[in-house]
Each structure stands twice: as C-alpha cells, then as structure tokens.
C-alpha cells in the first residue's frame, strides 16, 4: 500500500485534527471524534447531526458549517461510530428547536443510530431521524429500506441545513428535506479497487479491463460488471436508469451531482457531466443546479457516483441559500 499515513490506528484522529487546523474559523473537534461548527448555531434553530465512518473525505465532516451540518460524528475508517459517541453528539446538539439526525442507510450506521436514538428519547431529546437511501443499484423494485445511502446525503445536508438556518421548525425542516430525499437516485461506477488504509488490502477484485456499475461506498460489489466503456456510454447507461428511477419528465428542474470517488480526474468528471447535460436536453429535461467534484470519496478508487434529484420551488430556494463549510461554500 502506498499512502501518506502514520500509525494506521491514528489516521482518523489525525485527519480530524488536520481538518480543524486547516479551517480553524469554521470547525472544531470535540471529544476526539465529533466535528462541530466553530460558532454554534442559535439554539432557537434546528440543529443538524450526522454520523459515519472516515476515509470518505471531504464527507461527511467537510460539510459542517453555516448553512449545512452542526455536528458530524465520525467513526474509524469505513466504520460507523459507536452509539455512545453518537448519543454524546445528540446531547451536544440538543436545543429548544430540536435536532434533525441524518443517517446514511448502511448496516453499521443504522445500528448505531437506532441505539443512540433510543438513548436520546429516554433522555427526552427532541430528535427526528431521516434516512438517506438513494442507491438504486439493487433494482427499482427493491424495498427502499434495502437501498444504500451514497453521495445523496450531501445535497440533503444542504437543503436541511438551509431550512434550519432559515429558522423553520423541526417538522418543517424534516418535511422539506425528506421530500427532496424521496426524489433522489444514485448509481456508482468503479474502475479500480480501493485500498483499505488500515489493513493495506485491496477491496474488490476488478480486472484490468473491467468496470462495475452499482458499486458500493467502500468498493464492495453490487452491480453489473462490464468491459470499460467510453465516458459518454457510461454516462448514458447510468443516466437512463436514474431518469427512470425518479421518473424524469419534460420541464422537471433537476439536480445533477457527479461525485468523483478518488483517482478519477476532474477532467473525466467534466466529460461525464457534459454527456449528462446533452442527453437530458435531448430528453427535454434540464439541469437546474449541479455540482462536479469530489464530495464523498472511497479512498483512491477510480470511478464516480452520479446522483440525480428533482427540485420543487421550495427545495431549490434552499439549495440557493448561502453556506460556508470547508468543502461547500456558496455566496
């Protein structure tokens, strides 16, 4: 394994220290693994909390800051934080307006979140949980509970964060974020394996001429393998499935994210984005807002996640609100 690390058991704490040193005016690390805004939000506004393993930087903690997350509870590499830590963060976040707790649908995250929710309820904390699960790789007929949460959490943070910042009550913040969340779909494609930075081991076994559409968040399989395709063809295969999943119609206002997972260059992501724009405009639909870059990575795995969503005028207005986090800043 070729990575710039020190002791493998210290990676997570050291990387969080590096994050806080790089953005001292935006974030701080509390209790070793909880990333919090430097200037806490007004307690009369809903606090947004999330949890997840490390190794996916900038996600999740890179989106803590004004207009997005208040607390991100970090586990270890690819490992959910334990329920006790999550409970600790929910207590920190506890405020008069209540807490929205955004959880990606992965076994470990959900186990931890559920236990922490139990503890929080027993403590009388006003917290609502929102599960993201927009990976359609298992098929459209799949129970929504069986879908994984991929990069779709990031725009959900954005919209929930903006609604909370606007002072909306918890039920409203939840309604808006969940409405947007329900109309999301993501597919991931990988071309090369990720290396687990602690074990040094490759995850997966993609051959030299193969790619896999439907890849998971850590290089765990789950999709269709095929020979490597050109950028345009890859984009079309994925886009068509996403359009079907969220039932794209003429005049829809669409969100498009092209999220690089590691070694794939921004150069390539622009080619993919271009193909999506051209193909959607052929279908009479239009991209209202988009983002291209690395938001949620899988170590150095070459590939990307394509995520589409539908805006209504409400969610679009919250997308457009300013935010100021380490890796999403918007005027």
């Amino acid at each position, binding site marked *: 394994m070729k990575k710039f690390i020190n002791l493998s058991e210290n990676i997570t704490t050291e990387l969080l220290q590096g994050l806080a040193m790089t953005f001292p005016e935006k974030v701080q690390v509390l209790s070793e693994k909880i990333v919090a805004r430097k200037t806490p939000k007004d307690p009369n506004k809903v606090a947004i909390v999330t949890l997840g393993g490390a190794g996916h930087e900038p996600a999740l903690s890179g989106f803590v800051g004004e207009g997005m997350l208040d607390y991100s509870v970090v586990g270890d590499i690819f490992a*959910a934080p*334990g329920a006790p830590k999550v409970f600790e963060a929910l207590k920190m976040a506890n405020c008069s307006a209540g807490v929205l707790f955004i959880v990606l649908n992965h076994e470990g995250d959900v186990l931890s979140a559920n236990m922490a929710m139990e503890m929080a309820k027993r403590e009388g904390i006003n917290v609502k949980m929102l599960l993201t699960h927009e990976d359609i790789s298992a098929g459209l007929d799949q129970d929504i509970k069986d879908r994984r949460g991929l990069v779709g959490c990031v725009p959900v943070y954005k919209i929930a964060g903006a609604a909370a910042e606007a002072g909306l009550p918890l039920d409203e913040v939840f309604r808006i974020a969940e409405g947007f969340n329900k109309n999301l779909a993501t597919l991931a494609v990988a071309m090369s394996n990720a290396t687990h930075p602690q074990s040094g081991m490759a995850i997966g076994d993609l051959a030299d001429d193969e790619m896999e559409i439907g890849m998971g968040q850590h290089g765990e399989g789950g999709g269709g393998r095929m020979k490597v395709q050109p950028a345009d063809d890859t984009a079309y295969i994925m886009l068509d499935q996403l359009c079907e999943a969220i039932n794209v119609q003429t005049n829809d206002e669409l969100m498009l994210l092209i999220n690089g997972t590691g070694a794939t260059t921004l150069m390539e992501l622009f080619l993919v984005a271009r193909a999506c724009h051209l193909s959607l405009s052929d279908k009479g639909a239009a991209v209202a807002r988009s983002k291209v870059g690395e938001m949620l990575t899988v170590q150095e795995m070459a590939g990307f996640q394509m995520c589409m969503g539908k805006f209504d005028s409400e969610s679009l207005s919250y997308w457009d609100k300013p935010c100021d986090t380490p890796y999403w800043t918007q005027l």
Partner: protein
Amino acid sequence: MNTLNHSKLNGMFLAASASIQQQVPYLNELDGKTGDGDHGTTMHRVCQSIDSSLTNSERPVGQQLDDLGWDIMSQDGGSAGMLIGKFLMGIGAGIAAEEVNTEQLAAAFRSGLDQMVASSGAKPGDKTMLDALIPAIEALEQQARQGASIEQMFEQAVKAADEGFQATKAMVPARGRAKNMGERAVGYLDPGAASMSIMFESFNQYIAAA
C-alpha cells in the same frame, strides 16, 4: 465441570480474543470479498476492549460484561462491533450469579443472543454472524437441558458454530454490506460468522483445558 465462575468466564473471552487477534488478516480478507475489508480490524478493536476490561474480576460479573459491551460499542467497530457489544451487554444482563450452573450459563448466552437479534434485524439464513451464533447457542441450551457438562456443552456448540459458519458459503446475503452483491456473494464465507466460529473454538479449547 458443572459450574463456571466469573474468572473462568473471563478466561474464555480472553482466550477467544487471543485467537481472533491472530486471524485479523484472514478476517479482513474475507470481508474484502463481499464487504469493505475491515472485519478483522473491527475484531481487533473488539479484542482490545476485551483484553483491557477482563483482566481482573473485581466488579460483579453482570456489571463487568455490561461495561465491556458499552466499551466495545464505543470503539467505532461498524456493524459487528455494535452487535457484539449488545451480545455482551445481554450476557451481562442475563447472568444469574458470579458462579453459574449449566442451565444458567446457557440462559446467559441466550440473553446475549436475544439482545443482538433485537438490534440486528437479521434472520437465520441471511448470511451473517447469526448463522454461526444461533446454532451454537441452541446447542448450549440443548446440552444443558440434557444434563451435559460444561465441557460437553461447548464441544457441541463449537461444532454447531462451525457448521453454521460453513453453511454461510452457500447463502445469498440479506443483511450487511454483502447484501448488494446478491447471488455473486454465493461461494464466499461470511466474515462475522467466521469470528463467531473462532470464538466458540477458543471457548471450547479453554474449557477443555481448564
């Protein structure tokens, strides 16, 4: 032997911890096939918790296991850490005394299993650690009912755990990170079940030698 005291119970888990720590690369490798390649790393953290918590038996056994479960959960051990934490808290909650007879011992393990199942959401056949753990604990119960010794209990339990572990090879995963691989995961062993099988193997060896 027909009873097990607190210190021997600790000894069983410490023995399991020692064996599992030798299998970290193997467990990571199994998880690399169908998951995210870190089950060995998870178990390493779980074992470090066990090692530092169970070296003495000064606290009451129930309290000690409850603390250990909580500590394991605090180690950021992904799915497996959370579930094993629950398992230990459950044993702690279900253990009747500092020294227990065979039926009480089986009941304590059943209590651990129930707690784990309650959080897990998995069913037998879902290709998870439960597929090793459930038959193992059923074997403990059955043996205890039949008046077997503690040695005999674990002798049967390890067989059941290992069979359950081997059986995961043919299963289509329905929980955990392997789920999305569907049919393609057939032919691979479940890493969590491997840990459980190693754990019962060590229990058995420890008890046989004790």
